[in-house]
């Protein structure tokens, strides 16, 4: 269906974008790219990046679903981590300027793309999968709606990395402190009535770094684009560790 597209008024926005290609650049630099955006409707930061890339095709960033569910385009938007695809330009732009940097604390591969290896390695350490020991029934394992409700606020994690890369404890010890995303996943399985490995999961967290490096700064909570609460998950694990009988 074709439809008449009204000619929109445009205004300029200056994007200041972190650029670095290790094979070409000696060191990172900030590049200003001026884009023209419509005045009569809001666009997302990701749309603004597309406009910048039309001018500068070498500009690199990850993206996939463009609707906030795949977790590809986590980045630092005017100083705060978030998903470019669900952050409206009107909220992000300050004094007509938009500064984009890669998520902090992880090595930069190129431009806005970070090396997520440490993040994924920590996730794998919590065995992020259901562990059962009893035989599977013919049909489903039953779970009451109340038991299932325990997983709300946990299973929705999209592994974007916004939380862990805004966490000072993760910056200091990215190899030893598991970080908010991995710990949220740990709790997601401990909290699952079907999981049969709670004790092993808790044992694996009982050292001074894995969990206890969380100091309740709560940056994770304030940046999570899905509105999840890793700090609460961490405190739930703590309580479980403290109260369990050995």
């Amino acid at each position, binding site marked *: 269906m074709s439809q008449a597209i009204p000619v929109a008024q445009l205004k300029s926005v200056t994007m200041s974008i972190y650029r670095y290609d290790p094979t070409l650049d000696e060191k990172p630099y900030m590049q200003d790219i001026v884009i023209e955006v419509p005045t009569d409707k809001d666009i997302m930061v990701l749309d603004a990046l597309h406009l910048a890339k039309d001018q500068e095709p070498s500009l*690199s960033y990850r993206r996939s679903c463009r609707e906030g569910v795949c977790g590809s385009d986590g980045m630092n938007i005017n100083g705060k981590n978030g998903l470019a695809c669900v952050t409206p330009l009107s909220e992000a732009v300050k004094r007509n300027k938009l500064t984009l940097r890669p998520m902090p604390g992880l090595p930069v591969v190129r431009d806005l793309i970070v090396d997520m290896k440490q993040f994924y390695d920590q996730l794998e350490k919590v065995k992020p999968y259901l562990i059962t020991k009893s035989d599977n029934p013919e049909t*489903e394992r039953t779970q009451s*709606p109340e038991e299932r409700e325990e997983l709300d606020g946990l299973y929705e994690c999209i592994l974007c990395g916004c939380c862990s890369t805004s966490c000072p404890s993760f910056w200091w010890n990215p190899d030893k402190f598991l970080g908010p995303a991995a710990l949220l996943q740990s709790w997601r399985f401990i909290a699952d009535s079907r999981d049969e490995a709670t004790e092993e999961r808790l044992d694996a967290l009982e050292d001074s770094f894995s969990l206890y490096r969380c100091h309740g700064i709560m940056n994770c909570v304030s940046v999570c684009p899905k509105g999840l609460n890793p700090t609460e998950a961490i405190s739930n694990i703590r309580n479980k560790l403290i109260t369990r009988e050995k």
Partner: protein
Amino acid sequence: MLVNEVINAKDLPVMEFDGIIVGGGGAGMRASLQLAESGLNTAVISKVFPTRSHTVSAQGGITCAIQSDDPDDDWRWHMFDTVKGSDYIGDQEAIEYMCSEGPKAVFELEHMGLPFSRTEEGRIYQRPFGGQSKDYGKGGQATRTCAAADRTGHSLLHTLYQANLKAGTNFLNEWFAVDMVLNTDGAVVGVIAFKIETGEIYYIKSKATVLATGGAGRIYASTTNALINSGDGIGMALRAGMPVQDIEMWQFHPTGIHGAGTLVTEGCRGEGGYLLNKDGERFMERYAPNAKDLASRDVVARSMALEILEGRGCGPNADHIFLRLDHLGPEVVHKRLPGITELSKTFAGVDPAVQPIPVVPTCHYMMGGIPTNINGQVITVQDGQDKVVDGLYAAGEVACVSVHGGNRLGGNSLLDLVVFGRAAGIYIEESMKQGVELKKASHEDIEKALERLNKLNASSEGEQVSALKERMQQNMQNNFGVFRTKDLMEKGIEDLSQVRDEVENMHLKDKSATFNTARIEALEMQNLFEVAEATAVTANSRKESRGAHSRDDYPDRDDENWLKHSIYFSENKEVSKRDVNYRPKTVQAFQPMVRSY
């Protein structure tokens, strides 16, 4: 060796696996799980980290007769609905297999940990979806779609990733597969792929190659599909001389958010939502008196498009339809549909518990694809005869097995991808047990798969990707949408043929080997173009209206001439016909009837 060098087959490093899966979405990871659990050396090659694959965006659920909501539900009723939904060109043996094996595949997902919503009895929650019936269409609306709130795809994809981690699958994440390597016998012996981060390039050899690259909705300007849905597997297959089937059949989902294209699940209407035109009329009562808003998607999308064309659209430009949910109450909206609440607020600025969502039919799903049998083996057609391609499999949206025919029912895509990802895995596992040799390819064979890369590297002038993509997307949107007419299709085909040369000779300005997204987008554009041209030529060839394919010069279904699959090869751009399978194994075939809802 790096992707930005002059690449030659002689110096190309090699990796070897028993099985490789190209694509880390639901179908790919279900296949890889089967292989990894059977101890085979398995690798998933995915251009994104697997949980970024487009399966993640599926919302409403996975349709399957698991007898939770209705203990008397029957997979045969599901089969009947699916055959009818396909407008009778779905293969009945494949539909029978999907519907009857489905419960096993769904319960396996639950055992892996998929956090399904639950009933009071603790069973998997099911909701009504479009095109569902009890008792072969005679017993009213069925309730058959298994759901994890409205985040079923997310839950399914993450669960499969988790299960693969547990099983020890090798993941080549953020690797891009360029083309398949075929030897002179026509057997597929692996792929050329490179690591996006560093540009290191390899010939990845395997005994079995599974294409699970998903859809290609990005051929259209407005689509629910992720930006990564570029039909890579279709491009690879067509370039390798294999056909695609029923590729003219594109589903337009009734409810994409107006302006943004993001999906709003059919589950909204399943939970009791309905569509309104500008007069506040529930117009679906006129078009589908029985099923109303839960008629199948092609029917609802066409009705909406007609309402808009006839001036009854909503908004200042009368260019959309309202989806009303507020009467369900905030409890249902927020509990059953939390994801679409979030999406509506973000992309339409409305809270669906209070205001209606502005929606419009939006390109959503590719019913056609690479023809396969129910074991996932890719089929080519030689002298009118089906022939299995040695070493190659396909599953999920890239494949056309065909369970969706001319129109897919909601909730059947997730079932398709787990059932046939699993089936391909099972078949490969069995054949490996009987012994499959790693086949050889010559340097010449490998060089062919390197052509595209070397050409891009050598480019010093030509068009930019973004301009070509926009031209193609507008063309497809305007000329191959919900309603199709001969003149516009011919115009569209002409424009595509003018663009082809430019697409094959694009200019890649950025030659860096490090995470070069410009190179990826150029390679993807060439794949998209293959899909677009196949769609255009085939659409113009199918001289009838069936399922999602609706044209004004041939407004009726023509069973005499077109109760057939279309088959398209890119080499000569010719369209031929292939028989639809009407030979289910355990039930009588369902014969074509007038399709009304």
